[in-house]
């Protein structure tokens, strides 16, 4: 079996002594398309931030492509939640995407090179936002802004893409559009998506993990499909009853029986 791209062992994280993540163990393999679902405050975003080195764990080990986080996170592209943004900031689409090519090694009086601009342009073409190149980001629709942020993450040529709620507050069409883009990107890279969007889970992802302080992950690389169906069966049912909070309650019980 090949080595995992991301390997998390025995991970514990707490904020001000309140535990957020407990005993997380997961191995994610190359070209996996993993959804992480769970209730608000379940630690989904925190898990992404740990992988990115923004939040440091209290305990546990994370390897990204065999490296520790400091080295490994260079392989990771990050797409944060669009709600966290200062959308009035005077910056246009092209400049946001170019940001993905910046690093501290660029030094003083740095200018983006022709190569950087070309890469940005190709990405914008690929994501169908080239016509929005000069638009200030506050003047984009949610779906467009989401594509811009994906573009920014792609600009650093990542091998792993982490997305935080990429389809929150998008209409059905933009949502499908985003998932189709991700599906295409999945041929070249490993993708982790934190989402509430349970309707998309079965049709697009090839594996799924539930996170509510503890992780319930049923997928090894080879037996993903059955697990997806199994996990997916319960939340959809409950969501339909309009009691999303029970999703995990029910689900936790179910997973313990596994």
């Amino acid at each position, binding site marked *: 079996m090949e080595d995992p791209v991301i390997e998390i062992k025995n991970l514990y994280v707490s904020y001000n002594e309140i535990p957020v993540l407990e005993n997380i163990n997961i191995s994610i393999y190359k070209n996996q398309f993993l959804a992480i679902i769970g209730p608000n405050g379940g630690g989904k975003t925190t898990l992404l931030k740990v992988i990115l080195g923004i939040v440091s764990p209290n305990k546990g080990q994370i390897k990204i492509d065999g490296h520790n986080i400091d080295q490994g996170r260079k392989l990771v592209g*990050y797409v*944060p939640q669009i709600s966290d943004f200062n959308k009035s900031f*005077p910056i246009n689409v092209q400049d946001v995407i170019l*940001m*993905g090519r910046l690093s501290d090694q660029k030094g003083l009086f740095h200018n983006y090179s022709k190569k950087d601009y070309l890469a940005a342009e190709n990405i914008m073409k690929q994501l169908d936002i080239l016509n929005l190149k000069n638009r200030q980001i506050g003047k984009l629709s949610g779906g467009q802004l989401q594509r811009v942020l994906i573009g920014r993450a792609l600009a650093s040529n990542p091998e792993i893409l982490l997305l935080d709620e990429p389809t929150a507050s998008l209409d059905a069409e933009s949502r499908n559009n985003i998932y189709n883009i991700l599906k295409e990107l999945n041929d070249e890279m490993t993708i982790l998506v934190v989402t509430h969007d349970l309707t998309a889970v079965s049709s697009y992802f090839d594996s799924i993990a539930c996170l509510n302080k503890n992780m319930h992950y049923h997928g090894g690389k080879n037996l993903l499909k059955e697990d997806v169906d199994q996990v997916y069966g319960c939340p959809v049912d409950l969501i339909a009853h309009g009691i999303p909070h029970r999703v995990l309650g029910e689900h936790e019980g179910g997973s313990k029986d596994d």
Partner: protein
Amino acid sequence: MKVVVKMIEALLKYNFLQNAVYSALMASVVCGIIGTIIVEKKLVMMSGGIAHTSFGGVGLGYYLNIEPIFGAMFFALLSSVVIVTIRRKTEVDSDTLIGIMWAMGMSLGILFISFMKGYPPDMSSYLFGDILTVTNLDIKVMLVLVIFVVIAITALFNQWKAYLFDEEFSYVRGLNTNFYEYFLFILIALTVIVLIRVTGIILIIALLTAPPAMARLFTYNFKKIIILAIIFGMIFSILGLWLSYLFNIPSGASIILLIGSTYFLMATIVQKVKT
């Protein structure tokens, strides 16, 4: 026309008027740059806090009989570093923190002055600015600070832009956001020092915010906002200075009132044109 000729004659003749013009122009440059940054990063009140804290340094300067501007610089730098550190290390709300430091700085200033023997010095030029009393030493200090601020921002422009727009992503890209945060606050402190003589501690905030706010009415480009803000700042500070000379009114007040009312006028017109 006659007034203009008279003004130019006076300008050529009097050193204090030349210094006033130089300081107005230099103030406009840092205001355009740092003002735009603090407006976009929503650090306006933070900057006001640093400005007011520096009053403690002015008082200390008088008390120890050193140049008050150096006392102010020491206090401004100290308070900016303290604010960032406390903000990072604890969960105290920045707003609360600024409120406390703001008033403490002012109180220290008053305290130091009250310790002085004899007749207390006139503090109003530090509080409200008096551009017509800017000394040659002030000009030299300002020039050094302005050059430093301009180089610090232009040399790392792309990095600053990324940091200001999205701190978290910049960190993920390997930028040392810790460094940028401290550095930004130090630059704000230095800007405050440049502006103290021009508008005074109390009026600084308006000169920092009005030109970028005006520029923002016309463009969405970060670099253009800075450049436009510098130009607006220069035009209105010189005009304000002229009015102050003409009618013998305090320069800080005339510059701020002119720039503030022009902003509201412009904003109204632009709003009307757009709809």
